[in-house]
């Protein structure tokens, strides 16, 4: 009881109240929902979520949670292009106190624990040598609602992910400014804060990883400054790794030695060490390790599960694939529930950490048909037919059946 910061809680409550007032003045509803509902196909059946365009800077999103926001990207967005537009990019915050107003001229990124402390304005960072690449940002628990049996947590379908062209400064360049001495790890923290006196949301990487020249402190996403809801003004980009490491509104970097005992590294986001992060359903006692690299996945995007499609002798299909921490080598598609497969045509390669679009055309008969896609990455890893299970609902990457009716 005494651990809740009453002042901060009151401030936030007041902020919500003021927000409500502002919306009322503008004649809007409490939460500007478009009225439509998203249909999500989970392992235990279909569930509905409201669609909302009520979040500033965001178009229509699936409302998983208002506060702190959990906004999911509708599957149809991934059918429109290889890059996910900023205004449709998924949103996920842990704490109630998230940055809503950032003065770009006053903001500073600090680096401590090196040979000398460093404090940089955004203007300083913009003048440094830049790097840029496409990379998929995917929540560790993407597709959690499809776990069978179901597990607690944010009940995402497949839209807790997006692919953007990120632009910024290599973390290596910044750490060299601070002078890397004997540190073994680098810790990252942002502007979001808990209401209570608990470990802040901080993540860490091994120094070798942080210095690999690819890990980036990004200031731009698809050619624009980052939206506040996606981590303005700076976000850590850890290509090939799950989004939990992509610290938003990054304002502090700390070099340190030893093991990170912070809750968010030591206790949360733990996966089984077993292959495929897979354990027998119901198991909680198993060897664990922090989640890290993503795995190979693919989705058909030209049809939503449950869609009714007018009959033609061939069904054109489109979709997206990702290799995880490497490129996509091959995508196969099936229109008979995985009994027979045909190679899909891969679209232009936008970089090995990004989405790769594919298309195909398959002969189909009238009736119920199960569409599937199966990707193979550059390391030869193939999506399994059978889903994994773990109590955190992490790292799903099986072939996703897309049942449709050809009528």
């Amino acid at each position, binding site marked *: 009881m005494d*651990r809740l910061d009453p002042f901060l809680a009151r401030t936030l409550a007041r902020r919500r109240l003021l927000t409500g007032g502002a*919306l009322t003045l503008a004649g809007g509803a409490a939460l500007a929902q478009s009225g439509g509902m998203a249909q999500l196909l989970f392992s*235990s059946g279909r569930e509905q979520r409201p669609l909302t365009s009520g979040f500033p800077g965001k178009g229509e999103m699936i409302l*998983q949670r208002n506060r702190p926001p959990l906004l999911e990207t509708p599957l149809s967005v991934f059918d429109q292009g290889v890059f996910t537009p900023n205004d449709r990019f998924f949103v996920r915050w842990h704490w109630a106190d998230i940055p809503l107003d950032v003065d770009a001229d006053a903001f500073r990124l600090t680096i401590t624990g090196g040979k000398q402390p460093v404090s940089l304005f955004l203007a300083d960072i913009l003048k440094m040598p830049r790097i840029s690449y496409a990379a998929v940002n995917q929540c560790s628990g993407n597709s959690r609602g499809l776990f069978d049996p179901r597990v607690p947590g944010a009940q995402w379908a497949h839209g807790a992910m997006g692919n953007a062209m990120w632009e910024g400064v290599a973390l290596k360049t910044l750490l060299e400014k601070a002078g890397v001495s004997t540190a073994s790890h680098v810790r990252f923290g942002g502007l979001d804060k808990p209401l209570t006196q608990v470990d802040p949301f901080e993540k860490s990487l091994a120094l070798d990883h942080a210095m690999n020249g*690819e890990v980036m402190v990004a200031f731009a996403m*698809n050619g624009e400054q980052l939206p*506040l809801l996606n981590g303005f003004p700076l976000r850590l980009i850890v290509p090939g790794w799950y989004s939990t490491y992509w610290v938003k509104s990054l304002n502090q970097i700390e070099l340190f030695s030893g093991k990170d005992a912070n809750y968010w590294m030591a206790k949360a986001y733990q996966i089984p060490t077993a292959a495929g992060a897979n354990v027998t359903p119901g198991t909680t006692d198993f060897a664990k390790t922090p989640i890290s690299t993503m795995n190979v996945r693919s989705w058909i995007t030209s049809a939503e599960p449950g869609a009714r499609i007018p009959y033609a002798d061939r069904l054109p299909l489109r979709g997206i694939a990702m290799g995880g921490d490497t490129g996509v080598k091959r995508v196969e598609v099936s229109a008979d529930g995985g009994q027979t497969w045909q190679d899909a045509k891969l679209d232009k390669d936008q970089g090995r950490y990004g989405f790769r679009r594919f298309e195909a055309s398959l002969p189909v008969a009238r009736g119920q048909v199960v569409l599937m896609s199966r990707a193979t990455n550059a390391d030869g890893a193939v999506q399994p037919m059978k889903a994994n299970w773990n109590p955190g609902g992490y790292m799903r990457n099986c072939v996703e059946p897309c049942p449709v009716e050809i009528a």
Partner: protein
Amino acid sequence: MRAATLSIALMLLLASGCQGERDTTAEDMASAPQPDSFAPLASIQKASITLPEDAETFGEGEHAALLNRTCLACHSTSMIRYQPPLDRKTWTAEVTKMREAYGAPFAKEETGAIVEALMATQPSKKD
């Protein structure tokens, strides 16, 4: 409206930027970005947004009052409403995590009562 316009502009930009046939291999990633698609960022402007209101509660009654007091300081009702049916053991682990890791405003002794309230509110699994 503005978002829609931006989104269309972005799609046009992408469409025009991705026309060129260029063979890239999986190896060219980070060192070979696609600068043809997006212009480098020139400056960063201050940002400020206001989030939608969230006044929803679990309503009235003993269970609702308990959940309103112990859960809603940090998150919306939907975090609970959208959970799948969970058994007592799983709910207890979640409530304990909320108190220990997130510092939810309730005493350890209230855990059992909160789990009861959650199981009554949710289509829960029998123990």
